[in-house]
């Protein structure tokens, strides 16, 4: 790949390395971004993207390497130093102050003050409201973050990063919890920023977005710099090959398999955020659930497995009505769910991978009082291996894994349970393409074994690629169903499905 010529480089990283204990997260990487450029940074999970960005923003210290910014040698002591120097960042993991208001969050550390110390709340609120209104976000600046949805939190994070008037904004997976409309709004913001000469580092695992918004792309693999080029010069296949070091033919591989009897049937489920939901899913079937973020898909499934309260409705498993009052009951009946929020509902970050993986199945696997540790190690290691979790040892804390590898650990823990019904809520959120297709393959394998699978996803190509049937949610209710035949025959497209979600 050749370097594009004559770019006005604003930030340049040379030979940056960083190791965490035994893991070499970054190994002699280069990274250049020009003024007014939207620069995609791609790489598999654990490639070191977030790590480099955290070095730039001053959260980590590089072991070696040099960074220049605006022509001058650059080093950030901490994020506030970076912000002063003109770099801000939207973090991959959500990070709001739940008990502060939107205005207070956006202007944290940049409050309007009178006399140097006294807060000018009115001015801050007014300024925040102006920004919200200007960006067409329909929220009151005085609302507590606590009361917002995940997507709204993410939007506030984005607004916050943008409002620093930075010369360079780093966006680490900004759209992972946004729907397509919100994503489009973000892209509009990005275009506006770009027109003002602001540079943007854009990290995402969603290929479409890269081609839609980015000008330039750099790829990392296993902590190393692989290459960089103008977006015009690359295509999807080429980028994927660079990321994974091999060719991936079909990104959404679908294993065709025989569809059997109905396993799970629900009738008229209602609860907070959804009502009157009925559907069934058969053995060997993958049921996709599509909808906008906030349309109540997760809420339905959370209530179904006993994590939230179900207000009314009936659940039938293998034709028999069952009652589910807690997750434990659901698991013991063979209904398991991979939660979308892995940090809060998926993992004990400070416990080992082994313990995390075996947790839901401990009671069933070790019927006696005591845990059979040998069996536990064997089973969990196998489960982790089958999902190619990248870790030095099963005894490492889940904390030390990259986002995508953490997601694989969560998957591993539920696959161990060999459920009858497996509900996957955004199973590939933040997972790289390679692992994504591995996960899709696995879903196929499990379906072939007779498991019934329900998958919620906000990524339409994914949903359309691997579902046998697709349910469409709209504002907490079902609004249509699409079969694989319709999709294959081209009777349904992304556009027609989206149309039913709004």
């Amino acid at each position: 790949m050749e370097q594009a010529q004559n770019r006005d480089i604003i930030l340049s990283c040379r030979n940056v390395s960083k190791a965490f204990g035994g893991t070499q997260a970054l190994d002699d990487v280069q990274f250049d971004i020009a003024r007014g450029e939207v620069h995609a940074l791609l790489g598999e999970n654990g490639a070191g993207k977030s790590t480099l960005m955290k070095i730039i923003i001053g959260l980590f210290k590089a072991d070696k390497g040099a960074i220049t910014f605006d022509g001058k040698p650059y080093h950030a002591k901490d994020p506030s130093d970076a912000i002063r120097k003109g770099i801000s960042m939207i973090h991959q993991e959500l990070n709001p102050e739940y008990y502060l208001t939107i205005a207070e969050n956006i202007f944290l550390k940049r409050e309007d003050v009178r006399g140097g110390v006294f807060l000018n709340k009115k001015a801050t609120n007014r300024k925040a409201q102006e920004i919200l209104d200007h960006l067409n976000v329909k929220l009151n600046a005085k609302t507590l973050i606590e009361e917002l949805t995940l997507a709204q939190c993410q939007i506030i994070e984005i607004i916050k990063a943008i409002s620093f008037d930075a010369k360079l904004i780093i966006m680490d997976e900004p759209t992972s919890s946004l729907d397509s409309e919100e994503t489009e709004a973000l892209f509009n913001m990005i275009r506006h920023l770009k027109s003002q000469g602001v540079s943007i580092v854009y990290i995402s695992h969603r290929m479409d977005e890269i081609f839609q918004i980015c000008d330039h792309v750099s790829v990392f693999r296993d902590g190393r710099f692989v290459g960089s080029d103008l977006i015009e010069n690359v295509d999807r296949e080429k980028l994927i090959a660079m990321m994974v070091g091999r060719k991936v033919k079909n990104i959404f591989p679908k294993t065709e398999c025989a569809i059997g009897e109905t396993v799970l049937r629900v009738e008229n489920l209602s609860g907070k955020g959804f009502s009157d939901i009925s559907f069934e899913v058969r053995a060997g079937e993958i049921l996709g659930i599509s909808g906008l973020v906030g349309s109540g898909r997760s809420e339905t499934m959370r209530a179904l497995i006993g994590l939230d309260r179900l207000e009314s409705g009936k659940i039938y498993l293998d034709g028999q009505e069952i009652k589910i009052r807690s997750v434990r009951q659901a698991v013991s009946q063979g209904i398991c769910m991979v939660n979308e929020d892995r940090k809060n509902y998926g993992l004990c970050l400070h416990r080992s991978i082994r313990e995390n993986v075996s947790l839901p199945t401990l009671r069933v696997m070790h019927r006696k009082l005591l845990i059979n540790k040998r069996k536990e190690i064997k089973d969990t290691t196998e489960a982790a291996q089958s999902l190619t979790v990248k870790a030095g040892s099963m005894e490492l804390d889940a904390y030390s894994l990259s986002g995508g590898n953490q997601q694989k650990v969560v998957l591993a823990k539920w696959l161990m349970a060999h459920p009858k019904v497996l509900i996957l809520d955004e199973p590939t959120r933040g997972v790289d393409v390679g692992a994504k297709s591995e996960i899709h393959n696995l879903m196929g394998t499990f379906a072939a074994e007779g498991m019934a699978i329900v998958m919620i996803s906000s990524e339409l190509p994914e949903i359309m690629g691997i579902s046998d049937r697709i349910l469409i949610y709209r504002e907490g209710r079902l609004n249509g169903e699409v079969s694989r035949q319709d999709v294959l025959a081209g009777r349904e497209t992304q556009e027609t499905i989206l149309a039913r979600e709004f």
Partner: protein
Amino acid sequence: MRKVERSPRSILRMDQTELSIFMRRYGIGLVMLGMIVLLAVISPTFRKPSNVISILLQISINGILALGMVFVITAGGIDLSIGSMLALTSVIVGAVLNSTGSIALACILAVSATTFFGLINGLLVAKFKMFPFVVTLATQLVIRGVAYIISGGYSASLANADFKNIGNGKVFGTIPIPVIILFAVAILAFIIMHWTVFGRYIYAVGGNINSAVASGVNVFWTRTFSFVIMGFCAGVAGVIMTSRISAAQPNIGVGYETDAIAACVIGGTSFSGGIATIPGTMFGIVIIGLIYNGMNLVGINSYWQTITKGLLIIGAVMLDMFMNKRK
């Protein structure tokens, strides 16, 4: 979008969310009012102005401690060393006053000493990321030891009449000076907590430390300073306490952290940090004072007093929880 008003008059005109936020912040005030009404009905003594004054006097020391504690807890910490700090203040005041006779010098040195230990607590917590509970459990011992060494284990009477005045004097012949000091500290705390940038940082650090770091808040100094404020408040409370008993004693102050923490908690301060209000804390302080005073007025046997106090703490927290439906 409407402006959210907070003046009492507007309570009736609040909409659902505003009302719930208001209730969540100040609902415990209703509990306090309820207790006051109840006591006023059942005890004639309670209604006497002199009793009101003496309740205020009684809560002044604990109140100042609680006002310091609320900063620490809101920033995500806890300080168990304040009892020892009271003792340290007491012996330093005693030593300086008896040797130099200068009240100002005695008070300044004593408050400086506790503020210094507050700084030490803060540095250990903020710099080394040690748990506040553990740090202050340990420094508590160190500070108490220092107090014993300074005093040699003896208590000393303080005859200085002007000094006695700090704890026992009255302004306009009615309002005790400690009450004036309490209100001054409360106003100061209110301004710092609710009106300044530093207060905002306290909330931010306690609410979500990672977010605060990512926003560029100086988490280190914010946490440290919360302990410094606590140290300062403990020093002020210690001076009042020393003056009230007119004695320098190295063994006083044991268990005072309990009531200070209880006041904060009753006042709606969240133990996980990031949630607190100064008015709420003041309500908590008054409630604790009412518990003690009320039980003595009603003549509850002291064993039952202990039990009642425990039950009331649980009850107040639960009531607050149900009222706010807070998780």
